C-alpha cells in the first residue's frame, strides 16, 4: 500500500486535539457489574482484570499489522482507509488485499471527517469488560459526508436522549493510555440537529 497525497478522495482535515481517554488501561483492574446468580451465591468475583486477548482495540504497531498507517494517520489527525488502485473500491475497514480483485495494490486515502447520524442507540446495560464505566454510552451508524461509507461508532457529546437521526457529527481521534489511538464521533455543537 502506498501513500496517495494530493489525489486524496477529500480534503485533508485539520489536526484535532487528542482528548483524554474514555476507557481504563487495558491491564488495569476494572469493577465488574454482575447480576444476581441465585445458583452461585458468593461465587461472583468483585473485580476482574482485562486480559490481553480481551482487549477490543486493534493492534496498531508496524510489527503487528500491515494496517499501521491507519493509526499513524489518525495520530496526525487524518481519518483514512484503503482504496483499490485497480477498481477504485473504497474499502472499510482498511484492508491488506482488495476482496474484489484480490490485489494488494491499495492506496491510503483521506475520508471526510463529518457525517450525519443514520441510526443510533445506547448501551444502558450489558457492557463488555473495560466499558462498564462508560455506561450509558451512545453508538450509531453515521453516513460520512461525500463518501459512500456508513460507519459504526461511539457517539459522544450529547446524552443519548438528545441524539437524533440526521444530526451532524464529526470524527474525533482519541488516545488510549498505552499510546494507541482510535476514533469516535462527536456531535457538532455549532449546528442544530436535523429533525427525525
Amino acid at each position, binding site marked *: 500500500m502506498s501513500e496517495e497525497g494530493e489525489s486524496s478522495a477529500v480534503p485533508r482535515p485539520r489536526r484535532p486535539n487528542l482528548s483524554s481517554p474514555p476507557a481504563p488501561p487495558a491491564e488495569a483492574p476494572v469493577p*465488574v*457489574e*454482575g*447480576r444476581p*446468580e*441465585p*445458583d*452461585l451465591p458468593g*461465587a*461472583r*468475583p468483585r473485580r*476482574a482484570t482485562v486480559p490481553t486477548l*480481551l482487549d*477490543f*482495540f*486493534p*493492534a496498531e504497531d508496524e510489527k503487528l499489522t500491515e494496517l499501521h498507517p491507519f493509526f499513524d494517520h489518525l495520530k496526525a489527525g487524518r481519518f483514512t482507509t484503503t482504496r483499490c488502485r485497480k477498481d477504485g473500491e473504497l474499502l*472499510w*475497514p482498511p484492508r491488506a488485499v482488495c476482496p474484489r480483485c484480490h490485489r494488494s495494490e491499495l492506496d491510503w486515502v483521506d475520508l471526510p471527517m463529518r457525517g450525519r447520524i*443514520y*441510526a*443510533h*442507540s*445506547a*448501551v*444502558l*446495560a*450489558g*457492557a*463488555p*469488560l*473495560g*466499558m*462498564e464505566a*462508560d455506561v450509558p*454510552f451512545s*453508538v*450509531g*451508524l453515521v453516513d460520512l459526508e461525500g463518501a459512500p*461509507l*456508513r*460507519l*459504526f*461508532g*461511539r457517539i459522544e457529546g450529547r446524552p*443519548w436522549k438528545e441524539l437524533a*437521526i440526521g444530526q451532524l457529527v464529526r470524527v474525533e481521534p482519541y488516545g488510549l493510555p498505552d499510546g494507541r489511538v*482510535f476514533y*469516535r464521533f462527536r456531535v457538532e455543537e455549532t449546528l442544530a440537529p436535523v429533525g*427525525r
Partner: protein
Amino acid sequence: MTQLRPVALVGGATTRFGVRAATWSELVQEAGRALFEAIPELRADEVDSLFVGAAEPERFAFQSHVAPLAAELLGVAPRRILQRTELACASGQSAIRSAYAAIAAGLSDVALALGVEKMNIPSMAEANTSMACVMDRPWDGPHGATAPPFFAMVAQRHMHEYGTTEEALAAVSEKNHRFANTNPEAQFHEKTFSREKLLRLPMVAPPLRLGDCSSMTDGAAAVLLVAGEHAKRFTDTPAWIRGSGQHASWHNLANAGSLTAWDGMTLAAREALRQAGIGIDRIDFAEIHDCFTISEIVEYEALGLCPPGQGGRFMLDGQSSPGGKIVVNPRGGLLGCGHPLGATGVAQAVEVHRQFAHAVPASRQVPDPEWALVHNLSGSANVHSLMVYQRGG
C-alpha cells in the same frame, strides 16, 4: 446437482434451558441422556458421525477441541465425520446442516447433531465481552458493538421508516412468552408477561427494553438424523429435510445493507423453498430467530408473509398466532426459551419433530402440521440460515 439421498430427522431432546447449576460438559451429558431416552431404538455404536454446534466454548467454558469431548461424554465413537460447527447464534443449525449434507452425500448414515452453550458464568461482564467478539472485534468492538444496540438501531429505523410501535414489539414478546409459559424446558416457563408489563420494563438499548431481548442462557439439545431408509426404525413421523438455504451478506457493520429489509433472508428462504418445491403459504408453522422482538417483525417481511413495513401490523393482527396465517415460534422462541447460542437451532428442530409427532402440549400444538420452516440469523443479521421440513409417515 448430483442426486442427494433423502435425509430424515427422526427425534431429539433438549435440556431445560435457563440459568443452570451445570457446567458445559454436564449440559452435554444431560442432552445425551435425554436423546437416548427419547429414541430408545438408538444404539450408541451405530452413530457414525457427530456434529457439535458450539459458538464460544473457548470463551464461556475455556475449552477448545470440543467435538471429541462431546463424543466421549455421549459415549459415541464417530468413524465417519467428527466436527464442531461455529456460526455464532446459528451454530446449532449449522451442526444439523452439516449432518444433513454428510448423509445426503452418502458419507454418513446415522449422525447426531448436538448444540450446546454455557453462557451464565460468574462474571456477566466477561460474558458480555464474549458476546461482543461475535462482531468485527477490532473495528466495531472498541465502540461497544454488541447485539442489543445493533438490533435497537434496526428497531429505530423500522419505527422511523414505517411507524412501527413499541406496542408491536411488546406483542411479539407477549406471544412468545405465552407459548413458553407451557414449555417446561423454557427459561421463562410458568412466567407471564403481559404487554403492559413488558412496556414498563427498563430500557437495555433504546428503543429495546429488557423484554425485547433474549437472555443469556445455559442449555443443550440433540437430534438424530439418518439416511432415509433407516427412518422408520426410529419414528413414525420423520421430519424430512426438504430444503435449505443460507446467505452471508457482510460482517463489519459499515458494510451492512438495509437495516430494515433483510434481503439475505429473503434469498435464503427462496432457495430453501425452491428446493422443497413449495411456497411460503404452505408452511404451517415456523421457528424463526426472535433474538429480539424487532427481529421477528423484520423476518415476517423478509419471508414474504406480509409486505415490507407491515410486520408490526401482522403481529398485532394475530396473523402469527394460532388461528392466523401461520404459527410463529410455538416453542416459545428465543425470547421465551432463552438463547443458548449453540443449542437454539437444535432445540428449534426438536420442536419441529415434536410438532409433527403431536408430542407437545395442546396449548402449543399446531393443528396437523405438514410443513415447517426453521430460521436462524447470526451476528448482526448478516447471515441467515434456513431449513424446510416436511412431515412423513
